């Protein structure tokens, strides 16, 4: 195997002229982070809401929440992404669809990716939230109600604060997943880390360096997120219970 290693390639000016290849990678890194974080906000908000709805006594609401989760869980992420990106703009009323297609293509890629990742992950978050609520002792709900709390108050003051703490460890793994899943968005041309890695291979002809650098970036993201979440877990631990002292 006669491969010429050349790590200096990252400092060479890129094909676009105004940047280095390291700059390309960094741009991809920022895109991955920005996309994942904004999708995570959507996933947390919608996931918490849908997860709570799955546990309420109202059959219609709970049924809606179940359908939501099943829909997003049983179609591959790639297919969902293509539907958001290629199909949805076509299904809008012609005038709106045409106006949308006139907007900045990077914006379109980002929007589709963010909504897709956000909703896909929200279904998973919802499952964790539901599991967290259901794992609380049944008596907690009764104790809240017996004190005169209404059902929404019981959720708000008694069940959710505790369920939230139970759910943080599994949510950490969903949070990690969203960064990894964001790589799927390279398939619609969004220039995040994985896509920049592919470009680097094409432009620099140094495939090993390019891919090792991108792979390392993902590992760095992974380790950083894990460390932060562990700190967070310790901060919210309850004395005498899970993780507390």
């Amino acid at each position, binding site marked *: 195997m006669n491969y010429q290693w050349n790590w200096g390639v990252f400092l060479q000016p890129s094909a676009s002229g105004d940047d280095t290849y390291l700059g390309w990678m960094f741009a991809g890194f920022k895109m991955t982070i920005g996309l994942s974080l904004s999708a995570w906000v959507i996933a947390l908000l919608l996931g918490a809401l849908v997860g709570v709805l799955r546990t309420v006594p109202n059959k219609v609401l709970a049924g809606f929440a179940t359908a939501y989760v099943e829909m997003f869980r049983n179609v591959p992420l790639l297919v969902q992404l293509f539907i958001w990106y290629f199909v949805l703009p076509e299904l809008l009323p012609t005038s709106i669809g045409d106006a949308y297609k006139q907007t900045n293509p990077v914006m379109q890629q980002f929007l589709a990716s963010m909504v897709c990742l956000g909703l896909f992950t929200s279904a998973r978050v919802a499952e964790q939230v539901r599991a967290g609520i259901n794992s609380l002792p049944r*008596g907690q709900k009764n104790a809240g109600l017996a004190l005169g709390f209404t059902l929404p108050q019981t959720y708000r003051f008694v069940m959710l604060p505790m369920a939230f703490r139970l759910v943080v460890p599994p949510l950490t793994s969903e949070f990690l997943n969203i960064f990894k899943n964001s790589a799927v968005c390279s398939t619609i041309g969004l220039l995040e880390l994985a896509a920049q890695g592919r470009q680097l291979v094409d432009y620099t002809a140094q495939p090993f360096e390019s891919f090792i650098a991108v792979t390392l970036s993902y590992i760095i993201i992974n380790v950083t997120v894990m460390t932060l979440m562990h700190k967070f877990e310790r901060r919210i631990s309850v004395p005498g219970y899970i993780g507390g002292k």
Partner: protein
Amino acid sequence: MIKIANVSKHYGSFQVLTDCSTSVSKGEVIVVCGPSGSGKSTLIKCVNGLEPFQSGEITVDGTSVGDPKTNLSKLRARVGMVFQNFELFPHMSITENLAIAQVKVLGRKQDEAIDKGLKLLDRVGLKAQAHKFPGQLSGGQQQRVAIARALAMDPICMLFDEPTSALDPEMVNEVLDVMTELAKEGMTMMCVTHEMGFAKRVANRVIFMDQGRIVEDDSKEEFFANPRSERAQQFLAKILHH
């Protein structure tokens, strides 16, 4: 105070309660006992509407529990309940546990609620634990806090659902002592418990349930001296031997 009239309840085809009737007057202490699965916990949970029932009527201080127009939260705020597994809120300190419902349900001021809570905490002998979290207390201590939490709402009556059966034996008495004192002060109480010593000391009446029916409803003297049903005799024989 509490009137239970011909209450029946079933889950699907399984009959949990059959035609139960009894009443508790103001200041009375009633002990409900019976073998496990006899429906006694279900019955007491029907009193504050935690368990729905299909037929019959329960009124508490004149308010019908089964009536869909009744504001159940309002009613429950006036009826204290103590659970088998304490059910303190683990993510709140003892002080917060005592104050939260006073503030959010009764609309009391935070300081007022904390004051009241601490006074009651002192009464159950746990003032020193105010800043701790439930997970840092023993079972007996947690149950005493739970009683104080219920009392902080100024309840018109108290429901106890097997308050000592999750406790280690050496902690049972500290809880029973608090309950005994409460009874002596004239609190209206309905207690599901196997503690026959407690029943003998403070109960006015004893209700014995079996297979979802109220089999005996007697003064405690009558119940302990000569239980009428064979089931109650067997039950007493078993429990008193332990």
